[in-house]
């Protein structure tokens, strides 16, 4: 394992009853790289993320983070090591104002440790984060109950929740789904900036054109197996990948 490998997945598998949701997948990711995971619905992308982040325990295989075996660690421990994730089905804390939603990650063990006891005004940091992901600062939206947010905003709140943890690795599960064209266009430069700042990114996406503006490497899953890996353009040209998408979405490669 080379020095700057940050995440290494080795022969990871997960069975749900008879379903092989993920089947013997391996890949490596270097620090500062951005990886896209694509594949038709039900191909095991979300399960892959759950396995890396500890939300689901693998049936076999291992996950390494900075050379350390983190397989089977509880999800909260993994988060505190620096891997933050968003959920495909993003749900806010419905009964709190939007900005209070971010107090939770800002108050988390990791954020508190990084702040070293001098955290300043968490409410202010929360508003600032919201602004970064495109909430209008002077509007009333940050103060509304999160339960009343439109879907696109919930997704961006989910992204802000990850950022509040100041993670080294950010894993985003279908961030763009449910966002409008203009919302995606608004958030793309921000993701590009994160990548350029040296954060390691893993993104699961169906919107390939937008995804490929951010990632520099992609893998494709089908029925839980890795069927292609490489530069994004190569992956979408792969015959097997094209076939796997037949009948679902059209591959709209870059």
């Amino acid at each position, binding site marked *: 394992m080379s020095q700057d490998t940050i995440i290494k997945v080795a022969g990871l598998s997960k069975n749900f009853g008879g379903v092989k949701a993920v089947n013997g997948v391996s890949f490596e990711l270097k620090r500062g790289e951005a990886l896209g995971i694509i594949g038709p619905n039900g191909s095991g992308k979300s399960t892959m993320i759950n396995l890396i*982040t500890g*939300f689901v325990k693998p049936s076999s295989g291992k996950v390494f983070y900075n050379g350390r075996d983190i397989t089977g660690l*509880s*999800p*909260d*421990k993994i*988060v*505190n090591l620096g891997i*933050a*994730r968003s*959920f495909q089905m993003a*749900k*806010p*804390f*419905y*009964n*709190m104002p939007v900005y*209070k939603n971010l*107090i*939770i*990650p*800002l*108050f*988390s*063990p*990791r*954020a508190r440790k990084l702040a070293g006891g001098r955290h300043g005004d*968490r409410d202010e940091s929360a508003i600032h984060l919201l602004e970064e992901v495109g909430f209008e600062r002077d509007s009333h939206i940050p103060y509304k109950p999160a339960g009343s947010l439109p879907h696109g905003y919930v997704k961006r709140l989910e992204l802000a*929740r990850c950022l*509040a*943890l100041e993670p080294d690795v950010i894993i985003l599960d279908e961030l763009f789904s449910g966002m409008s064209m203009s919302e995606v266009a608004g958030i793309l430069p921000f993701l590009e900036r994160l990548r350029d700042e040296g954060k390691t990114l893993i993104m699961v996406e169906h919107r390939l054109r937008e995804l490929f503006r951010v990632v520099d490497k992609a893998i494709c899953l089908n029925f839980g197996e890795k069927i292609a890996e490489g530069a994004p353009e190569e992956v979408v040209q792969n015959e097997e990948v094209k076939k796997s998408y037949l009948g679902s979405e059209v591959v709209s490669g870059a």
Partner: protein
Amino acid sequence: MRIQAGFRKERIDRGIKARTDDIFAIASCREILYLVGPRFLLIAALLIFPLLKSITGIYWQNVLMITATIALLALSWDLLHSVGLVSLGQALFFGAGAYATGYLNSKFGWSPVLAIPAATLLGALFSTALLYPVLRLRGIYFGLITFAVPMLLMRIIEATKILGGTEGISGLTPLPGITITLYIIIAVTLVCVYGYQRLFETDYGLVFKAIRDNDRSVIAAGFNIQLFKAQAVFLAALPATFAGAFLTHHYQFVGLPAFAMDYSVLPMASVIIGGPGSFIGAMLGAFIVVPLSEFLRTFGTLRIVIYSLVLLVFVVGLPQGLFHYLKRKYDQFERLVPIEEVEK
């Protein structure tokens, strides 16, 4: 031509409420009164009642004692509920505190001044340790376990004859006169309401609320929610174990009735009627539930039937509880506005 299609209710915040959601910008004595009046009335009523022994008679003083006990258990229930844990067995906490103080007092001769605080802590630790393995459970599953545990403990005490078995432990040191006793328990109740309310205004308390809304995202923020729920159970157990310990010395007796279903059902009924989530509601509920059950005594065995029906009416008719309803009426104007429709 416009035709009128009916009325809808419009709710408008009163001026002071609209201005004072967070910061108090107080302009007049009237507004001060508006803000602190209800609290003041409540506390004053609580402080005066114990002095009226000659008017109310000792019977109603005792009712107040039980009311405060149930209020403490209800506060405890409300805190657990705020973390998403529905307890059907508040009697567990009550009984743990009761038996702890009974044991300390009878075995080691600790005076109540020492035994009650010690029992409060020990009982809370014991209940937290007991519930720790099942904190992963949610909804009805957790409720069932809490329902089963007090019965289990009761049966174990019965079968093994420890802690006095079915006889219980009697002859415990009594508390000082009823007036002081009442003041102590009322003070503890008020401190508890205030303390819990403050707790939920902190970032730490916010995590509790978040767990109830969406525990998955709390885990994804790096919290060990098992540990947090355990802390919530411990904090929630404190007033309940205190109530158990305190009432034990009041009765000078502890026995199997300490795990009785009343201590599980009445607090829950209180919160449901009073309104969950505000803590004041829980207390208010207890002050309806317990005296009501005393009034209903004249109905003999029909009492519980009427009681259940009242509870039912509240649950079905006012699911958000009395406190939230009253608060809304207090903070907002309501008026009917005609709905107009344009005729096509």
